[in-house]
């Protein structure tokens, strides 16, 4: 990914300003991360008293307590199921839609793309209540429980990430040479064969980028989850609020739990960032 530019050495002023800027920025980025990490290893007294940079003693107690103060394990599983399913569905559906828009011309294409894009402007609060009504009515009419179930949440989240995903994949698919799937079609693959044997493999970075985005959207959402879930289906983003309870704010446990719930996404994100940059390069920002 290196892009060596000019053979000339950069001037000193540039080097210095780069050093200063990047150091300050690193501080800005890292301080909260450090606070999260160090506070999660402090005893409760340290985090409810005046702030201190270093813990008086290191303890892993918070990491043990977080699992019993609130049913974090269950929330974790719920979040994994919800975010995982929403991601898979969102990616598959976005791939189909983007393929259609990228490779076919058909009536209503413009209406479709514009409508999908414009949903990005909807204030969530506007359709919060109506969405419940719809889910409940679907439940009453068909017996499919969407309200309060993981299914309803999956459906909601996958649709949240859909517009951006479709939009990015259209760009990406457009950049996959058309000759490739033409060739596949000549070889006797159907359109879906061409999609899955040629276009999708060539678009892996874009698809990974979209998947990461969809997963993060579902993993962190608070508003809909707070009203649409119950005790058994509650997700992490809402469940974490359980640490500020009647008695005391267990800041060390909050920080420990925040760290625990962040690790999967951050790790996944960093592992896949190479794809992400590549995906964005060819996709949305071309």
């Amino acid at each position, binding site marked *: 990914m290196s892009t060596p530019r000019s053979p000339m050495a950069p001037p000193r002023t540039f080097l210095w300003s780069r050093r200063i800027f990047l150091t300050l920025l690193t501080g800005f980025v890292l301080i909260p991360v450090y606070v999260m990490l160090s506070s999660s290893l402090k005893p409760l007294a340290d985090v*409810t008293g005046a702030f201190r940079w270093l813990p008086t003693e290191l303890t892993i107690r918070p990491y043990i307590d977080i699992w*019993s*103060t*609130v*049913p974090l394990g269950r929330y974790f599983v719920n979040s994994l199921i919800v975010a995982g399913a929403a991601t898979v569905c969102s990616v598959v559906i976005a791939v189909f839609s983007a393929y259609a828009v990228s490779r076919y011309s058909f*009536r*209503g294409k*413009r*209406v479709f793309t514009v409508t999908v894009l414009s949903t990005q402007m909807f204030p969530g609060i506007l359709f919060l*209540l*109506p969405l*419940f*009504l*719809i*889910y*409940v*009515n679907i*439940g*009453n009419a068909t017996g499919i429980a969407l*309200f*309060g179930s993981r299914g309803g949440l999956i459906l909601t989240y996958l649709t949240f990430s859909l517009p951006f995903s479709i939009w990015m994949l259209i760009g990406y698919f457009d950049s996959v040479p058309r000759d490739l799937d033409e060739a596949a079609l000549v070889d006797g693959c159907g359109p879906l064969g061409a999609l899955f044997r040629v276009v999708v493999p060539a678009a892996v970075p874009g698809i990974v980028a979209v998947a990461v985005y969809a997963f993060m959207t579902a993993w962190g959402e608070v508003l809909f989850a*707070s*009203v649409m879930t*119950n*005790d*058994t289906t509650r997700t992490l983003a*809402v469940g974490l*609020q*359980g640490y*500020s*309870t*009647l*008695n*005391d*704010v267990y800041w060390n446990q909050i920080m420990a739990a925040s760290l625990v719930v962040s690790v999967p996404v951050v790790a996944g994100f960093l592992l896949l960032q190479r794809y992400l940059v590549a995906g964005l390069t060819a996709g949305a920002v071309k």
Partner: protein
Amino acid sequence: MRSIRAAATGAVMLSLALAASACGGGSSTGGGSNDSPKELTYWASNQGASIEADKKVLQPELDKFEKQTGIKVKLEVVPWSDLLNRILTATTSGQGPDVLNIGNTWSASLQATGGLLPWDDQQFEKIGGKDRFVDSALGSTGAEGQPPAAVPLYSMAYALYYNKQMFADAGIDAPPATWDEFVAAGKKLSKDGKWGTAMEGSNPSENVHHAYVFAKQHGADFFTPDGKPDFTNDGAVAAVKQYVDLMAKDKIIAPGNAEYAQNQSVSDFAKGKTGMLLWQSASANLTSQGMSEDAYGIAPVPVQSGTPGAGTQVNSMVAGINLAVFKNTDNLDGATEFVKFMTSDAEQKILNTAYSSIPPVKAAQADPAFNTPANAVLKDTLAKSAVALPQVPDESQFETAVGTAVKELFADAAAGRPVTTDSVKAALTKAQQQMPTK
């Protein structure tokens, strides 16, 4: 051509949507049914140290109920931050629990939605009659002249908790009985990084509870007798000012309290950072924070002068939790049976002991278990000098509007800006204008 096609597509979508919305008006089946007699869903409010702690208290009782009746109760403890929203969406959608806890101040507001089963005399008979409950608790179950929207479950009252050691060190002999004494004691305590008392400045509900009692002590109210908002009368303004002045003028509250909203004032008191605490039924909380029962004393909340009583001598709101039945329940008999179980003398004793609250059921309240000095003060307050928050449909909006206004005033006080009668009046005027006009 293209725009015509777009318009046509739009029209199709719109008609689809309207079709969906036409049948989307919630389910308005009148009463409730008994379609599912073997199961109940119960939303409990978070009363104990944590949600998990509450489950440990409640689950054994629910098991007992199942043994007696064969009805399985699915328990969900809903955090306070979500409870009202969950009830609202449940009401709107018709999809909710069978039985639920509500903050008793919400009774009239939720009653107005029509989502809760009214407890007329006939319904009350099924759980042993209205007479089993104390009057003060029944006064917080809905608008006057209408059947109550809920049944009292736990009663609580504000009391003054004081740190005995800090009082002795500061040379204060007795807990303050009037606000002047309270401020004087507070000033003696406020030194060396310690403070007289603590407040939840960013918690609208706490603010409203205090503001309302202060208003009563000034002979005022936030509503006219016919239920219209009247936040800017002189008594109400003076009341709010007196409350905020504890920080702004008397300086017996640390400025940092202006951003407290998560019961930090209880932990401050338990840690000896403050010498006094005005709180409802705090004993269980203080114990779980490691403060021993010998370390603090408990006294009635101060009044302006004289002794606590009715009228302008009130010194607490009637705090508590009510138990309501959701009108859309599909197990009406089971739900009623469950309310009967939860309000039975035996369960009342167990549950109120666990939560250090007072049973609103007379027979249970008479039990010696509730005669400790702490409970004696609370019982006495509830019986003689507690006042119900306004039982009007707009109560929950009132809590938000006035509570937020007081929060902003505390923010002013904390930042060192003057809090004057005018600034209080301006804040309350703004709050009143946010109230529904119909």
